């Protein structure tokens, strides 16, 4: 038996150890009109006070405010695993009287991150590539509207091919159950009508257990998530303390699945789909951007793209991307494709091994 046991069944563990050592980094963007509970939700999701020193600008200041992009970084550790979370906030979105084109700075920011990664990837020193690409965008929809507003549609159409979008209904405790259902239905219909591609949850494998499948189906049904955020712990009529909002007619519990979809969102974002979001960003969205970018380089009208990227360059590197001769870029593309293929094969082998060892384990249990 020992002769046939090679030992690469430990590969998953090795991967696990390496990832734990390396840590994860995740960039989350929150967008939506002000006053929809974005900051409170982020604080509730990650149980940190990311917005401690925040000052809501006064009305006078808001009259001349334009959209700004703010990044905050925080390191969260749980069970020995470190997550470097970067939050991208968009204060000023949808605030002014005339919001035309207010989404352009956001689109530019997302593309800048892709550009930065493309440069780093094509550069000479690839040891420590910082991945600052936006992996997920939580878009907050107002519970008081009748579905998506024209501004929501315009923003989503501008970013849906560039970032994973998860639509969320903020301040969902303003709605009665029937209203929540009707609003979700309407939003889903509108998203389909406007052909906006939100993040699609991958179907779970057929060999997952029933419980997981049920949870997964429930989660897919409840998009967009109707959430309530709170960092305050309240006593709900003498029972155990819960996180919630205390009104004079009752208490909304944030972690109660009957009250809102906060648990679903947290499970999805942090527990089950964090890695998938990163993968989709890398494999689909970034590759799409890269293909477009390189294709436009191959065409003669690539001069102005080169000058634009040069201007947006912040840190210094040796050779800016557009000056690479074509042959080199071709080689790069082929190398990357080769790498991808190899990694995919390895992954499949590991999965097969895991299944085998699981089957073996069950057999030995039965015995």
């Amino acid at each position, binding site marked *: 038996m020992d002769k046939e046991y090679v030992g690469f069944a430990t590969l998953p563990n090795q991967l696990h150890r390496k990832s734990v050592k390396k840590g994860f980094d995740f960039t989350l963007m929150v967008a939506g*009109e*002000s*006053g*929809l509970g974005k900051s409170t939700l982020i604080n509730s999701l990650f149980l940190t006070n990311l917005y401690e020193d925040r000052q*809501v600008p*006064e*009305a*006078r200041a*808001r*009259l001349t405010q334009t959209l700004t992009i703010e990044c905050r970084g925080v390191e969260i550790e749980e069970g020995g695993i470190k997550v470097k979370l970067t939050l991208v906030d968009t204060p000023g979105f949808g*605030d*002014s*009287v*005339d*919001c*035309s084109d207010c989404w352009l700075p956001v689109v530019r920011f997302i593309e800048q991150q892709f550009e930065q990664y493309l440069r780093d990837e094509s550069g000479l020193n690839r040891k420590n590539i910082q991945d600052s690409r936006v992996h997920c965008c939580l878009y907050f929809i*107002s*519970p*008081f*509207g*009748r*579905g998506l*507003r*024209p*501004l929501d549609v*315009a923003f989503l159409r501008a970013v849906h091919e560039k970032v994973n979008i998860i639509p969320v209904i903020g*301040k969902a*405790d*303003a*709605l*009665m*159950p*029937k*209203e929540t259902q*009707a*609003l979700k*239905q*309407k939003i889903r219909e509108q998203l389909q009508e406007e052909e906006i591609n939100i993040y699609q949850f991958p179907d779970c494998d057929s060999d997952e257990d029933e419980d997981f499948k049920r949870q997964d189906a429930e989660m897919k049904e409840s998009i967009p998530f109707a959430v309530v955020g709170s960092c305050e712990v309240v006593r709900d009529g003498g029972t155990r303390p819960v996180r919630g*909002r*205390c*009104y*004079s*007619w*009752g*208490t*909304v*519990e944030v972690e109660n699945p*009957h*009250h809102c979809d906060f648990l679903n969102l947290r499970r999805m974002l942090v527990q089950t789909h964090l890695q998938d979001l990163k993968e989709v960003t890398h494999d689909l969205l970034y590759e799409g951007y890269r293909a477009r970018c390189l294709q436009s380089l191959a065409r003669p009208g690539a001069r102005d793209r080169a000058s634009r990227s040069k201007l947006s360059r912040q840190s210094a590197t040796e050779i800016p991307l557009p000056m690479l001769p074509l042959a080199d870029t071709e080689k790069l593309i082929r190398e990357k494709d080769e790498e991808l293929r190899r990694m995919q094969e390895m992954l499949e082998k590991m999965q097969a091994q895991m299944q085998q060892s699981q089957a073996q384990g069950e057999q030995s249990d039965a015995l």
Partner: protein
Amino acid sequence: MDPLRQSPSPSSSRASSPRTLPCEMLGYVGIEAVLDQLKIKAMKMGFEFNIMVVGQSGLGKSTMVNTLFKSKMWKSTMPGLGVPTPQTLQLQSVTHVIEESGVKLKLTVTDTPGFGDQINNDKCWDPILGYINEQYEQYLQEEILITRQRHIPDTRVHCCVYFVPPTGHCLRPLDIEFLQRLCRTVNVVPVIARADSLTIEEREAFRHRIQENLKTHGIEVYPQKCFDEDINDKILNSKIRERIPFAVVGADREHIVNGRCVLGRKTKWGIIEVENMAHCEFPLLRDLLIRSHLQDLKDITHNVHYENYRIFRLNESHVLPRGPGWVNLAPAPASVPAPAGPQATPGPPKVGWWAKDNSDEEC
């Protein structure tokens, strides 16, 4: 005109003028019966009240109107159902006659769907200002006729209820732009809409910030400080001014709570009772608009806002010199839209009447 209308100038004092001495009465004459006579006349003629509701879609405007007047004035729709929001602002008016204890009220509600819903909301207040000025213009035209009707139909907007979305932060630029322009033309009552998404502390903080914003930008909402006539009014209105804007919730479904049948919204964590002061301030709004200040709203509209409009129009047509009757609510805006309407100068027979008035003034 209203039988209970007071004298034109709000600065006229009700106390006896120095030339008439109070006289002692030696017995019961029956003068107080004049109040009954007034009442009977009023009941026969009925009252008119025109209210306008302004705010983004989904803030519960139609439901609020239904709740205020306890009748299905509008069909309030759930999110997702109903007509999609129009691309441009359209004003819709609906008139109902409701009756209570023999008193008839002809109520007109003007809704403003599409307000603040577009991407570019610049000048979205122009149609509303235009509508209000149009109603003033119609009344003015009726008033300056030689043979006037006995009772001029009053379509002027007596009160504009502005719904502020419950963001919890402060007034948005759109709110400020709108309120600044409208508070000079009509009585504006701002309310915090859908207040069931704010806790009591959040409401107080939000209210406080809104009050500060209103003060900073010079917005005078109803009840305006400058129209308090005597000390009683001041005390009463100050109490109201402390609580403006009211945090309201509207509902048109009934539920059973503790054996009583109440209007409310039923959620999984409790029932929000609309008429319970501990839950929301809807009773305060209802009392202000209907039970205590309805007549005052009409008076201020007639005596102040309409008069201002009239003086502006007559000045425009160079017929009446700017005299002591001008009431300045706020610094005169440069951008009061000149209403498009019938000719500024009246036709030949009317000029005669005005000329006579002019000569009286000059004497």
